[in-house]
């Protein structure tokens, strides 16, 4: 489930509020808040759309997990999904590397 909206990176663009399919975030005067964490379906799409890599979705779908943000930011987890699918300028060549056609029919 969504665990982190990093106040340092977030620019209050509110894209996550708009794109979350299950309406987990609320706008505020400042950065968005995780208002309904229990509705998060752990689809990782908010991370994908966040242009600042300010969000972190924990892979645990059913339980909240305490997150040490300082330690998290020392890993490459934040933004890792966006980079992997090619939605950053540096990795855009990855948008067309789908090799599913080699896996079908197994």
């Amino acid at each position, binding site marked *: 489930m969504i665990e982190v909206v990093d106040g340092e990176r977030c620019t209050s663009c509110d894209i996550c509020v708009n794109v979350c*399919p299950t309406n987990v975030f609320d706008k505020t005067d400042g950065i968005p808040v995780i208002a309904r964490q229990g509705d998060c379906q752990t689809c990782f*799409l908010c991370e994908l759309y966040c242009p600042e890599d300010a969000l972190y979705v924990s892979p645990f779908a059913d339980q909240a997990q305490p997150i040490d943000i300082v330690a998290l930011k020392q890993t490459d987890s934040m933004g890792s999904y966006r980079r992997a699918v090619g939605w950053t300028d540096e990795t855009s060549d990855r948008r*067309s590397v*789908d090799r599913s056609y080699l896996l079908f029919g197994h």
Partner: protein
Amino acid sequence: MPNPTHRAERVSAPEGSVAFEADVLVIGGGPAGTWAAVSAAERGARVVLADKGFCGTSGATAAAGTGVWYIDPDPALREVAMANREKMGGYLQDRRWMTRVLDSTYQHSNRLADWGYPYPVDGRGTSQRNSLQGPEYMRMMRKRTKQAGVTILDHSPALELLVDDDGAVAGASGVRRQKQDRWTVRAKAVVLATGGCAFLSKTLGSNVLTGDGYLMAAEVGAEFSSMEFSNPYAISPAFGSVTKTLFYGWASFTYDDGSVVPGAASKGGRSAIARALLEGPVYARLDKADDDVRHHMRVSQPNFFLPFDRTGIDPFKDRFPVTLRLEGTVRGTGGLRIVDDSCATSVPGLYAAGDAATRELICGGFTGGGSHNAAWAMSSGAWAGQGAADYAAQVGPAAKRKLSSAGAVAFRSRPGRAFAPAALTRAVQAEVFPYELNYFREASRLQGALGRLDAAWRDVSEADAADRSEIVRAREAAAMLATARWMYRSALARQESRGMHRRDDFPDQDSRQRHYVTTGGLDEIWTSARPHAEASYAEAAE
């Protein structure tokens, strides 16, 4: 650019609400809904698309990668493609529909290429079009929908349909949940593209799919078909949401003590996993994947690895606990009954597309996942959008029609108890999640579940209207409850095992039951058998 006169018109509305006049209203903004909206707009219709979440991220496709049933128009290849799934589907497919879906999917995939979808190119320079990356695909579909002149209402769950005096569907209303107001769209035709129902199981991307369209359609008298084919379960890490059945084809499955679960496999052995999970934990390790396969997996479906990378598990070397999450009619094949080539339902003015509609015509009683559903979404979406636009063109001016709201459950003021959506959702899940009820079906267990579900329906029918802040959840819970009852009533009616529907008390396929089960109703659920086209021809020839 679209002609501005072909945009839906915002009209005056009472305070606390917004209203639009359109030719076609599409409810749901996944692949089927966006194809429907684009296709209706290209026919000259003024279109509104209302999505419960955000058109572009909503639904089972956006969060995943999906295969597409894309086959080159070579008669021999097409024949193999149609034939190789017929047995699995219990011979309930319809060859004519399979042919037109293959044609349509080929055309629509090629349109995606023209629009700039970044299809991969293989070593021989051939563009490979049998897979789509969900986020990329749906981001593009949102853009194309807007460019077609469609008015998109995001975060706008539909709650009920509007009907005219003759019972024809003429719009819908709902709430804008981020603006705390209501919306109404008066339209000449409505396409339901609300997806299937996965009962909030958290199978990837499916928690918006709670059968909302089914409930609205049932309230105007629509019929359903193949609702017994509603019990696929997908493998995911026990703690996570990412279901990608294809990759578990390279897994070995073991008990707690490390011994192999006999017969367990992703394809053709998932029931062995379900049986083992009834006894205790089951573990998977993708140890049959060689280095090439591992690489292809990583680049093809990056989100599959997020649960592993973020917990320090190497899925190729480490054992990790798995579970099976119910996918319901999202990957089942049941849904609204289609009555003609334009994907009309049995109710005038109402069309169905994607997983909201039955996929029996191309899948019979089994789908192995996205491939056929993705093809169906594009094809049925386009047909429903065109059909709805053509129907709308024949309907007189909308302003002259007197419309009424069709919603009943959770809307009626009653002196009784308050409507409690969260408790109702848990009660429904307790009847549809357990493998011993839904995966492995048997008459007395199905009847027991139905008795409890029917009692719950009577209970909510007598409950007071849901509070404004709870109305969306109340309608979702009621929709899941109704869906469970159509599923199990249909499952009782099919006294055999066929496709994904397995009866412990009728373990074999019965050639006399090569028919479709139709169902419907809310207070009283009915079922009836409908002949399969080929089976009835064969009988006539005897």
